[in-house]
């Protein structure tokens, strides 16, 4: 066990240090620690503009999301590695070549993720806060308790993703039923009991009212989904020679008004047959957004619902833009490299498919807008969602071409990506604060988006066809 665990830790470190550079990456927890340390001194200032409760909620929501991301990356890790480093394979996926059971390897993998990310993300924040508290007179109990509750938030996110993905692996229908049931319970609670169910998130309650019972409840919230995931975990990969009806020809016919119909048809078939349209919509879109919405809605005492909604529209736009990565994750560019196609042809077809997928965020935001009683602002909300989504898509195309899943891990690209998004969003965020209808000005984002797409096409047409 120790050998596998040690090598998995080493492997995780090498993945990150290869992407960001050893020193840069080693400094990452130091930076978190320093920020937390300095932030402790700034707490009185922060408190003047933002209630501490909100800050606590936001930090816990962030760590819950980090848990989700780590869980999701763990499950897709092999795919990502293959694209980033060529024919790479993670130890977690080596059950066929090691004399160890897949369930055992998965257990070690979960333990590795827990410890690795605790020391990478959670401990530095707690340590910085703890050291800062020694100078500011904050009782030591608070940073220690925060360390505990953030760990529990993070682990809850990770274990819920493991649970949902294990359920998904077993039966898509079962997952669908589970999500519908959970959604109804959440919604029912919200409507009939009148409180936001997120306020019952045990790690969050623990921040204010520590009790051993609550701690046990929080630990169970981590352990139960994780244990069920381990029980449900199925190492059997589907194989066989099932026959499929021919969908290419009818799809090409249906899509013949769009540019490059066969390429768009391939995207549609890929998404459907791989199960990604269901899996990605649930794991990469609905689950994170619903959680963000519930946490954001906790702020409605301090921020008006429409402003929360417009902020949420921008967040939804960013998450919706990642649908471009759903379309680029199948196969490598080598499929197209054999054919008389320019890179710009493929990018154009991906934009077409991306446009078809935008039905999902439109529908989702419409539902959220009506549920929050802001139906009159539906138009600016939808305009903002779509314009942000296309703007971030354009940034992705310009920076990463057809390899968003790979190049986004390049440090320089990542910084440019966040800078460009940050600039665009801060402008439109400020506008909507002045007047919700200014959300309509989001259409202005289509101008830089158009320019970035054109520049991206020219850039990637000139670049060598890189086959990952």
């Amino acid at each position, binding site marked *: 066990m120790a050998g596998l665990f040690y090598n998995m830790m080493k492997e995780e470190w090498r993945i990150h240090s290869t992407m960001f550079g050893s020193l840069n990456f080693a400094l990452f927890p130091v930076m978190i620690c320093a920020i937390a340390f300095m932030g402790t001194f700034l707490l009185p200032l922060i408190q003047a503009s933002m209630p501490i409760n909100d800050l606590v909620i936001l930090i816990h929501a962030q760590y819950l999301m980090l848990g989700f991301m780590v869980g999701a990356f763990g499950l897709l890790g092999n795919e990502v590695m293959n694209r980033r480093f060529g024919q790479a394979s993670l130890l977690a996926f080596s059950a066929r070549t090691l004399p160890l059971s897949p369930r055992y390897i998965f257990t070690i993998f979960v333990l590795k993720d827990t410890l690795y990310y605790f020391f990478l993300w959670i401990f530095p924040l707690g340590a910085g806060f703890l050291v800062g508290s020694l100078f500011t007179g904050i009782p030591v109990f608070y940073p220690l308790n925060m360390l505990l509750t953030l760990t529990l938030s993070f682990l809850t996110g990770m274990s819920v993703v493991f649970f949902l993905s294990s359920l998904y692996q077993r039966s898509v229908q079962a997952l669908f039923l589970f999500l519908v049931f959970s959604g109804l319970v959440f919604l029912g609670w919200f409507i009939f009991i009148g409180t936001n169910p997120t306020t019952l998130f045990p790690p969050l309650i623990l921040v204010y009212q520590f009790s051993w019972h609550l701690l046990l409840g929080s630990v169970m919230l981590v352990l139960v989904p994780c244990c069920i995931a381990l029980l449900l975990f199925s190492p059997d990969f589907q194989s066989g020679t099932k*026959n499929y009806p021919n969908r290419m020809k009818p799809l090409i016919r249906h899509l013949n008004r769009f540019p490059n119909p066969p390429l768009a048809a391939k995207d549609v078939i890929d998404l459907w047959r*791989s199960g990604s349209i269901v899996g990605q919509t649930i794991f990469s879109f609905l689950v994170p957004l619903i959680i963000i919405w519930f946490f954001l809605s906790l702020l409605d005492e301090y921020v008006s619902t429409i402003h929360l909604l417009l902020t949420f529209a921008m967040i939804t736009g960013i998450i919706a833009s990642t649908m471009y990565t759903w379309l680029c994750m199948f196969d490598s560019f080598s499929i197209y490299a054999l*054919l008389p196609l320019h890179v710009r042809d493929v990018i154009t077809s991906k934009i077409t498919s991306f446009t078809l997928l935008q039905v999902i965020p439109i529908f989702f935001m419409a539902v959220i807008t009506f549920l929050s009683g802001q139906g009159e602002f539906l138009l600016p909300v939808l305009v903002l969602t779509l314009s942000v989504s296309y703007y971030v898509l354009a940034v992705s195309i310009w920076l990463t071409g057809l390899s968003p899943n790979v190049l986004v891990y390049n440090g320089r690209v990542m910084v440019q990506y966040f800078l460009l998004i940050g600039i665009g969003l801060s402008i439109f965020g400020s506008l909507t604060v002045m007047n919700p209808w200014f959300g309509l000005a989001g259409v202005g984002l289509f101008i830089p988006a158009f320019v970035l797409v054109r520049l991206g096409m020219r850039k990637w047409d000139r670049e060598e066809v890189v086959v990952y």
Partner: protein
Amino acid sequence: MENIIETKSLTKNFGDLTAVNAVTLNVRKGSLFGLLGPNGSGKTTMIKMLTGQIVPSSGNAHVLGLDVATDPVGIRTLVGIIPEQESPPSFLTAMEYLEFIGDIRKIPDLEQKADWWFDFLEYGDKRNVLCKDLSRGTRQKLMLTQAFIHNPALALIDEPLINFDPIMQDKVKAFFVSYTKQGNTLFISTHLLETAEEICSEVAILHVGNLLYTGTMESVREADRHLSDLFLSLVRT
């Protein structure tokens, strides 16, 4: 005789590594040209440059009269390509993949042509199976089909027989020979010397990016040598 491929001092560097070093060679129309070399000799890089998948660092190359650096898409319109690693799209069936190719290449009578290939390579029962579920050999058959289904004047194939059983190898070798007899040209890269000796009309030997030999198989035979002897004597020195 007309040259289908012409390269002059063709070079490709990847950082400090020179994968192909100043290669000058001509491939005549109607020939079955074998590019031979050990692993890592630069064969795949040569094919990638000749099909416009990567840009030469220096030198130039013309394929079917088109410049690889300025008109890669024009070249890919005219030629058929099979890369070293067979990679049909995972979630399309074999037939869907051919329809995908057919629509992009604007191939008339695709269905009849596909049927002929399914029959010829004996994998018609797999036409509606997802590519990811196909065996390596069947994937190679599908890649062979996509490379030849538009009847190109030139096909460039990286390790053409590596995933086939001996019966299928024999069939495909016979197809290659008859294909070139019709005036088409085949450029294959391989390290299987027996295969090259059996079917190629011209060969070139590449080692660590350098072109060590180029000539007809006839001249090799006239010198009373086996290709493997020639290859080993050049590569080991």
